[in-house]
């Protein structure tokens, strides 16, 4: 029987590794549900991480840092939205350009902030930690953003399936022509969805720079934006599935380290492929039922909308 402390530790570590993926993934999910594909998550996360960190250093308040990160992510998304929604630029290429831009911009902005250690979000409750049992300590290390990541999938699920705004948003993603004919402001709704995606990416970035590894260094998101993007497809555009997918991905990553620390003889590079292979395997399992996936994929995804076309 494994030590319950270790199991708890694995669970908490999984939750923390999954948090940035859930936050950024939910944002992208809403964006895609409105029919817009934004591949710039990595760039928006980086700018969010840098700006969130800078604002925290300047104000000394991580809450303000998170707000600044969301605003910065939304501003990045606004650039994307202007290009793709108002100027009808290609969404795939614009998203990729946004990532390149974001990597550079975050590095330029943050260059003076690289040597500022800050107190991470998770340690806010630390004074009592030393007296608690190891198991309780693990539980207490869950920071507020992890809580947000636990609750948010349900909120987004509710919004998309029950709220009027969510239903309209999905209608726009299914067929912008029909939605437009019904009198919905297609472009405005998509702007909202794109900026929500940017704000969530920014928040996810600030989780990395304020809580997970409280620091700013260039390129610290290290590819998590791409994983978040993959998880949206993986989830077949369903918020709860997205959260489960992120947990699975986080768990396999942590499990890889656990297996190594136990001294099992598998080359580390091959172990490192496990999260990716596991994601593919589960996607195959879900997608085999063709009708279900087809129903969920927003039909207008990636297509520009112009009233006269």
């Amino acid at each position: 029987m494994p030590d319950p402390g270790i199991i708890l530790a694995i669970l908490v570590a999984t939750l923390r590794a999954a948090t940035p993926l859930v936050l950024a993934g939910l944002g992208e999910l809403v964006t895609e549900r409105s029919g817009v594909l934004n591949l710039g998550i990595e760039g928006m996360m980086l700018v969010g991480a840098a700006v969130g960190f800078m604002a925290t250093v300047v104000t000394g308040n991580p809450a303000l840092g998170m707000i600044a990160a969301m605003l910065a992510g939304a501003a990045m998304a606004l650039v994307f939205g202007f290009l793709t929604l108002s100027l009808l630029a290609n969404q795939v290429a614009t998203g990729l350009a946004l990532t390149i831009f974001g990597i550079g911009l975050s590095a330029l902005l943050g260059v003076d902030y690289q040597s500022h250690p800050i107190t991470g979000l998770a340690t806010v409750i630390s004074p009592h930690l030393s007296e608690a049992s190891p198991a309780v300590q693990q539980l207490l290390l869950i920071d507020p953003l992890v809580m947000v990541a636990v609750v948010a999938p349900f909120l987004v699920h509710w919004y998309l399936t029950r709220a009027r705004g969510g239903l309209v948003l999905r209608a726009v993603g299914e067929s912008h022509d029909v939605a437009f004919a019904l009198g919905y402001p297609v472009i405005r709704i998509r702007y909202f969805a794109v900026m929500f995606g940017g704000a969530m990416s920014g928040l996810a970035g600030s989780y990395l720079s304020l809580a997970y590894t409280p620091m700013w260094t260039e390129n610290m998101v290290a590819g998590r934006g791409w994983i978040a993007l993959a998880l949206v497809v993986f989830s077949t555009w369903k918020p709860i599935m997205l959260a489960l997918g992120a947990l699975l991905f986080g768990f396999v990553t942590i499990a890889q380290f656990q297996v190594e620390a136990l001294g099992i003889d598998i080359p580390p590079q091959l172990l490192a492929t496990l999260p990716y292979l596991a994601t593919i395997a589960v996607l195959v399992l879900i997608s085999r039922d063709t009708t279900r996936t087809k129903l969920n994929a927003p039909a207008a995804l990636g297509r520009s909308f112009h009233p006269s076309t």
Partner: protein
Amino acid sequence: MQLKLEARPARLAAMVWLSPVVAVVLSAVAAGLLFALLGRDPLVALYTLFIAPLGTVMGLTELGLKATPLLLCAVGIAIGCRANVWNIGAEGQFTIGAICGGGVALAFGESGGALVLPLMLLAGIAGGALWAAIPAFLRTKYNAHEILTTLMLSYVAVQILGWLVHGPWQDPEGFNFPQTRQFLPHATLPLLVEGARLNIGALFALAVVPLAAVLLGRTMTGYRIRVAGLAPGAARYAGFSAAGTVWFSLLLSGGLAGLAGICEVAGPVGQLQPIISPGYGYAAIIVAFLGRLNPVGILFASLLMALIYLGGEGLQMDLQLPPAATGVIQGLLLFFLLAADVLILYRPRLVLKPGVKHA
């Protein structure tokens, strides 16, 4: 005030050529502002970025060398996109192509003579195609979306390369550093210019441009691809096999990316090592769209992209600008290019009164 786009009655031919010019001018202005902000002379910096790399034979050959993998990967990606097949894992196919072709070079060692190089190229193409066959299989058999599978398999491919060079394929005389033996001269691509690194891989890439253009424009396969992309319903109605299109476009783009991979390791890199690509497979996606998914357009786009890379290095070396500044300028240039494309189809107009409201 509101921006309104009015559809032009027809694609404006002049704008097809003018829009990139507008974009380059706009991004030059923006880049100049950024340079000034960073305390550099904007004109000197712009010269360093856009003109200086083209001033020498060495610069031109390096431009060709850098554009080759971008061009090969991007043409394949574009053909896929035309058919609505999203291969965003060219990086992985590039890597597996390099592994398979490189494996041939290592297996032959000093033997094999003139046979080795053709075999390496074939193995590279086959390897890339094989890696792309996995998403094709998963898509046609299990309906798993290729955006996810190709991307995930790219991460896997890079790890496989890492495992091989750290493990079974490690150079026995290399002090256990992660690298294979260097490829011998008969397993290296012939050079085109004495003293420079440009090799016959560039010719393969150039040859692919007209071939792809003919394939898309003049053949039945190309027609099926375009119909599958524009009107999937009509394609089914016409009896075109959707699975066939997925297989064809993924195998083709995988093969091209694999060719790019083997050309890189049998060319400038000269061995297998953990890092063989600075993200060519991903950059090629942008190149494909900048070239408007058109092989000839992609040729120009790949050269432009290569120029920005080279110019960016120059900015660091000559003006001590951080690489991050180059990234920002690259992003800006791409934004302007993409935004300017709107001029081809639409006439933008600023109207003072908001348009009709749709509640």
